[in-house]
């Protein structure tokens, strides 16, 4: 059977059922607000948002893979299996295949579900770390963070979704926020976790880092 070409995010988004984004935005906002009321600690809320996102992501990846015809996952498994047995000579191939899959997952995924275009950039030398930039995030429409919640990662659910989704395709990742317009325009570089590759012969597990930076242009 000839391999089916992956569909673009726009094409998929045009064909799936869609709902009003305002309802989604306001629901997310109400959830964050209720979590803040119930849990009171901003760190705890961040953690719960990430956990909820993770639970969503592990299911959303099925729909993503079914609808987008991303076939490279199968290749990636084989590639990663080979890579696990070699050391660094094929790291270029690794970065290409991983970056390809991630680019597809993230760029197509964001378009397909949230209806926004994301871009991937800032790959580091080993190809294990990249930035995803969301120019226009529906979650933060109408949102301003009060001073009491400055430690809050408002969109932490997104990082959980990405982590959950990628874990289901055998990529263990860490997702951290770099820049967030809701918290002010300062560039906050989070602590760098040393990169490790826990290769296992029979499992295709790669520890990677994806830093997400989100730029949002405020409406003037």
């Amino acid at each position, binding site marked *: 059977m000839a391999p089916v070409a992956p569909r673009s995010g726009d094409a998929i988004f045009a064909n799936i059922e869609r*709902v009003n984004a305002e309802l989604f935005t306001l629901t997310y906002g109400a959830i964050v607000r209720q979590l803040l009321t119930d849990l009171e600690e901003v760190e705890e809320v961040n953690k*719960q948002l990430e956990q909820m996102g993770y639970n969503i992501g592990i299911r959303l990846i099925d729909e993503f893979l079914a609808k987008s015809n991303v076939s490279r996952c199968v290749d990636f498994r084989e590639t990663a299996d080979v890579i696990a047995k070699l050391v660094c000579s094929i790291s270029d191939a690794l970065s290409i295949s991983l970056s390809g899959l991630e680019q597809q997952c993230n760029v197509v995924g964001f378009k397909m579900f949230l209806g926004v275009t994301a871009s991937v950039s800032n790959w580091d030398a080993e190809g294990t770390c990249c930035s995803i930039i969301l120019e226009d995030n529906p979650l933060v429409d109408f949102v301003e963070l009060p001073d009491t919640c400055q430690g809050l990662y408002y969109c932490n659910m997104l990082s959980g979704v990405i982590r959950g989704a990628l874990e289901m395709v055998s990529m263990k990742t860490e997702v951290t926020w770099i820049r967030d317009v809701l918290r002010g325009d300062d560039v906050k570089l989070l602590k760098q976790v040393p990169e490790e590759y826990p290769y296992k012969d029979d499992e295709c597990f790669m520890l990677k880092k994806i830093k997400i930076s989100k730029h949002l242009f405020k409406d003037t």
Partner: protein
Amino acid sequence: MVREVSESCLDSLLTEVVSCYCNRFYPNKHDLAARRIEAIGYQVGHQLSERYTMERPRFNDHLEAIKFICKDFWLELFKKHVDNLRTNHRGTFVLQDNKFCWLARMSIDPFADSGKSPEDITSPTAGNKATHAMKMHLYFSCGILRGFLSNLGILCAVSADILTLPTCAYFSLSHTYTEITL
């Protein structure tokens, strides 16, 4: 152009919120979980009422407001109208939706409880547990309606019921003069 997101985003989010509150935060305290879920819906309904009634004149009476909900509000949220509206003309309204989209994809697993034999399916407890789980999802919509109406100055209690599993939902709005506090 109205901005849109995929339906599965919202479905996943709601399912996860209900699961989180019922299983993680308040595992054996369904009342508390229900109140929180309803409070989230209240917040959403409150804000949506401002957005959707901005450009129209004030409602003359409660019936007009309810009709607005049945037609325009339901259309914005669920892309369909409410199928049936009934009232007793004494402050109670019943809205019936024959295919409520947030319930439409739910199924009930009669063997959900381990150790139950097939003969127990017809027992009231098995059906009740499944219905109870589905009702937790309805609290959010009840909250939306209550929030929407409260911002229009109509204080009421909203409750929902499932008639023909799993796709029919009733929302009874009973007009009260005391505000329900959570």
